[in-house]
């Protein structure tokens, strides 16, 4: 059994990373050429890692299941990227970004990692601008910033509602440069299905070519997993359809511990479900909460009238509306962190105040903002006594300039015009803070196997702040891994090429082949999606926004049953050695069905509430915080790192105690 050593460098927190970099081993340029590194996933973390490692001289093989690295799901991030540049002179600093991130994560992240993240954040912006990323600018030509939830400064850099796209295309262009030079060998439409270990070290992968269906062996001196998060265990989420846990789960089953699987971010502002055919949920950026007010009717009869179509939201007078975030959290109002906003919406809907047919929707209303902006605009332009309709017209133009693309997206999906009637929104699964356990060097518990970006657990604790995912992905890939991986690889300069003809590779390939053949020969009757939807429903109902002991125990039983049924009754049409998208899904859902159980088990084990993990049994009673989530630092200030022992029910937990030397543990209050 491996011990959990986070390998946090000695010294004061602000010197740790610099000292560490000064003392780790390096690999000389001539030797780098003969060292191979595999990078799985080409989003912000994988793309930036592949480009940086290739540029340093390593021979990189990069893999993505999409038809081009540019399509990884980082592309869909909307809002922005945080960096402690303090361009706005509003008192921002590395320490403040560090502090906000640890507090926002509800004190469940590792101080040293978060400090390093804040420390390199400024470099990311410099780097991206040099690469030609077109961030938003002010008229003076300097970079513009905006503010996000849970913080008191403006440190978010953005490119309209497409920041993730622009940053990913930046990383993709850096990769292209290296692909053109032959330093990265790119494998598009390839999916990693197994990790190969030789003498205990990660030495390669088994991948399936998704066009021909052939299994391939690829060797390397180190393997980087940057395959993103596992939100699709809920079936419906804001993740892309192909986002999956397979690469991460396969290394977990080979010995990498999986940390805090139950930490999931449920984003408050997403378009609600409309029917059983629904395949995914769409996010409406957090930035909308700057101007939108969230409410439900205060009276049940109004709720009923709305559901029956006899009444419209705009017909309800102000006194009959319940602006529940403003009511419960007067200090932060509509800009409370994501976990708090989501739970509050669920509470109202559970109490019967949801405003659509499914009872799972609340309003996000821009009428006040339209009126406010319209009046301001009229005053500035010297229009005296403007009519109500003129004010609306002016106000709508302001809103359009700020959120036009989001409003258009909303209307395309729902066929409702959000300028005229409030948007309907409901929380949805968006991001997973949990992931593969890594030490300070981003190495997993398997020597030579690294994890970066959303795939690891490291920086966001139990709740991630807006605009921090992009920051972490690029920090890991551009600025952390390129240093730390060299320390490990300095022992490998005499190893030479790793053969793929060894027993280890043959056995790993055979194991994958067995799984593939098992699916192809199964004489079942139901599609993969049938089981994935069942799993998603259990996860959402019992392991979702609010969790309790009874529900979690039921969920574990139900997931086991679904898993058994899946293996008995799933049907995969077609052939294994051709493009077969049903087979691809089956191999992913097989892993989700195991992860789902561990996820519920982790949630059951952690009887405290923290961040996105809310245990109904652990709430504040009485006093000003009555009904809020209650953390238990005495018993739960640790990372739960799970070891695979053959079945999720037997997984063993290892605890990495979290110590806070530079930040005082406090209750998060947004009242």
């Amino acid at each position: 059994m491996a011990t959990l050593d986070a390998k946090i460098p000695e010294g004061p927190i602000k010197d740790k990373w610099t000292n560490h970099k000064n003392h780790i081993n390096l690999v000389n340029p001539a030797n780098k050429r003969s060292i191979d590194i595999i990078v799985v996933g080409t989003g912000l973390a994988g793309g930036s890692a592949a480009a940086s490692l290739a540029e340093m001289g390593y021979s990189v093989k990069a893999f993505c299941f999409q038809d081009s690295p540019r399509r990884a799901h980082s592309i869909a991030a909307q809002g922005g990227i945080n960096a402690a540049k303090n361009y706005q002179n509003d008192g921002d600093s590395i320490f403040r970004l560090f502090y906000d991130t640890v507090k926002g994560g509800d004190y469940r992240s590792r101080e040293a990692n978060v400090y390093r993240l804040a420390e390199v954040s400024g470099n990311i912006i410099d780097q991206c601008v040099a690469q030609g990323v077109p961030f938003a600018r002010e008229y003076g030509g300097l970079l513009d910033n905006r503010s996000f939830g849970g913080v008191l400064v403006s440190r978010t850099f953005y490119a309209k509602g497409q920041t993730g796209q622009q940053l990913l295309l930046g990383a993709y262009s850096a990769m292209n440069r290296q692909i053109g030079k032959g330093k990265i060998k790119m494998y598009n439409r390839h999916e990693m299905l197994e990790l190969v270990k030789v003498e205990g070290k990660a030495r390669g992968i088994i991948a399936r070519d998704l066009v021909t269906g052939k299994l391939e062996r690829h060797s390397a001196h180190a393997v980087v997993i940057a395959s993103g998060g596992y939100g699709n265990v809920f079936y419906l989420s804001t993740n892309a359809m192909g986002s999956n846990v397979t690469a991460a789960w396969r290394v977990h089953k080979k010995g990498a511990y999986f940390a805090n699987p139950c930490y999931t971010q449920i984003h408050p502002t997403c378009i609600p479900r409309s029917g059983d055919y629904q395949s995914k949920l769409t996010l409406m950026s957090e930035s909308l909460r700057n101007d939108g007010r969230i409410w439900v009717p205060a009276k049940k009869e109004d709720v009923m009238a709305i559901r029956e179509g006899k009444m419209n939201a705009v017909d309800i007078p102000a006194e009959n509306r319940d602006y529940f975030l403003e009511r419960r959290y007067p200090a932060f109002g509509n800009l409370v962190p994501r976990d708090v906003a989501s739970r509050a919406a669920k509470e109202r809907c559970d109490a019967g105040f949801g405003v659509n047919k499914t009872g799972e929707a609340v309003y996000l209303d821009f009428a006040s903002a339209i009126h406010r902006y319209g009046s301001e605009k009229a005053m500035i332009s010297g229009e005296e006594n403007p009519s109500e309709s003129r004010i609306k017209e002016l106000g709508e133009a302001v809103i359009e300039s700020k959120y036009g693309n989001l409003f258009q997206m909303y209307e395309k999906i729902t066929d409702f015009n959000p300028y005229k009637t409030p948007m309907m929104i409901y929380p949805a699964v968006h991001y997973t803070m949990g992931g593969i356990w890594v030490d300070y060097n981003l190495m997993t518990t398997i020597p030579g196997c690294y994890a970066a970006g959303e795939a690891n657990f490291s920086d966001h604790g139990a709740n991630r702040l807006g605009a921090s995912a992009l920051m972490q992905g690029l920090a890991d890939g551009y600025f952390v891994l390129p240093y730390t991986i060299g320390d490990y690889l300095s022992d490998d300069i005499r190893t030479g090429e790793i053969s793929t003809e060894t027993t280890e590779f043959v056995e790993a390939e055979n194991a994958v082949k067995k799984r593939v053949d098992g699916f192809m020969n199964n004489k079942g009757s139901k599609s993969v999606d049938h089981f994935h939807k069942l799993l998603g429903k259990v996860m959402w109902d019992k392991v979702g926004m609010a969790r309790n002991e009874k529900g979690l125990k039921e969920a574990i039983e139900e997931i086991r049953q679904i898993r058994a049924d899946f293996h008995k009754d799933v049907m995969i049409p077609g052939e294994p050695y051709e493009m077969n998208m049903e087979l691809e899904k089956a191999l992913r859902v097989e892993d989700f069905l195991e992860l789902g159980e561990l996820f519920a088990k982790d949630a059951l084990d952690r009887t405290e509430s923290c961040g996105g993990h809310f245990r109904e049994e652990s709430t504040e009673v009485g006093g000003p915080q009555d009904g809020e989530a209650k953390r238990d630092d005495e018993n739960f200030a640790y990372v739960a790192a799970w070891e695979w022992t053959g079945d999720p029910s037997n997984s063993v937990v290892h605890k990495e105690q979290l110590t806070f030397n530079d930040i005082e543990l406090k209750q998060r209050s947004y009242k």
Partner: protein
Amino acid sequence: MKVTLKVWRQKSASDKGKIETYQLAEVSEHMSFLEMMDVLNEQLITEGKIPVAFDHDCREGICGSCSMHINGEPHGPDRGVTTCQLHMRMFKDGDTIYIEPFRAKGFPVIKDLVVDRSAFDRIQHAGGFISVPTSGNTQDANSIPIPKADADKAFDAATCIGCGACVAACKNASAMLFVSAKVSQFSLLPQGKIEAKRRVLQMVEQMDKEGFGNCSNTGACEAECPKGISLENIARMNREYLKASASSSE
């Protein structure tokens, strides 16, 4: 609503391929087009048939994976959307819908509606980047101010999602809109000017090698582009190309 689907089925790159007809009895107008395709595939699987292969991923119009030619138009009848953002309310009860892959010499069919767009990647390998190290040791991000108008134009060009609708819409299967968007983004920014000549010459050379046709200014690409990438970019690229060809080589 009920719809009749005429779908291109092609087992592999070497197969000849043909249109097959399917009936869907219960389609909700609130479904996205791809959710309707999910229903079709579920029906085919239940009947023991092979589901239709199609590329898709984010389903929110940004990854650029989806690539269907619907009733003769890339991404179908709506404007400013990708296939995944197209909703069934754009169709009527009883409609017959033709669904084919993007068609172009540069985009060979892999299977059914899935095409190979790796030519786009190779054009980017040829010069779609600024040669800057990823060390982070560059100058401060604010040390070179960029006029807002230029930054905004560069952004507009950079919003291209690389879906290939421009190629599919063009009677010459030209990739000019795609290539010019990248060339424009970098040529508008001071950081990109250093390599501007080399970039445009190499990217255009690769574009021609991949078998894409020439531009004859019909503007079909701009009309069908889900992201509204402007023809202005093609004009800018032509100027860059002329400038680069006329001046001395490196």
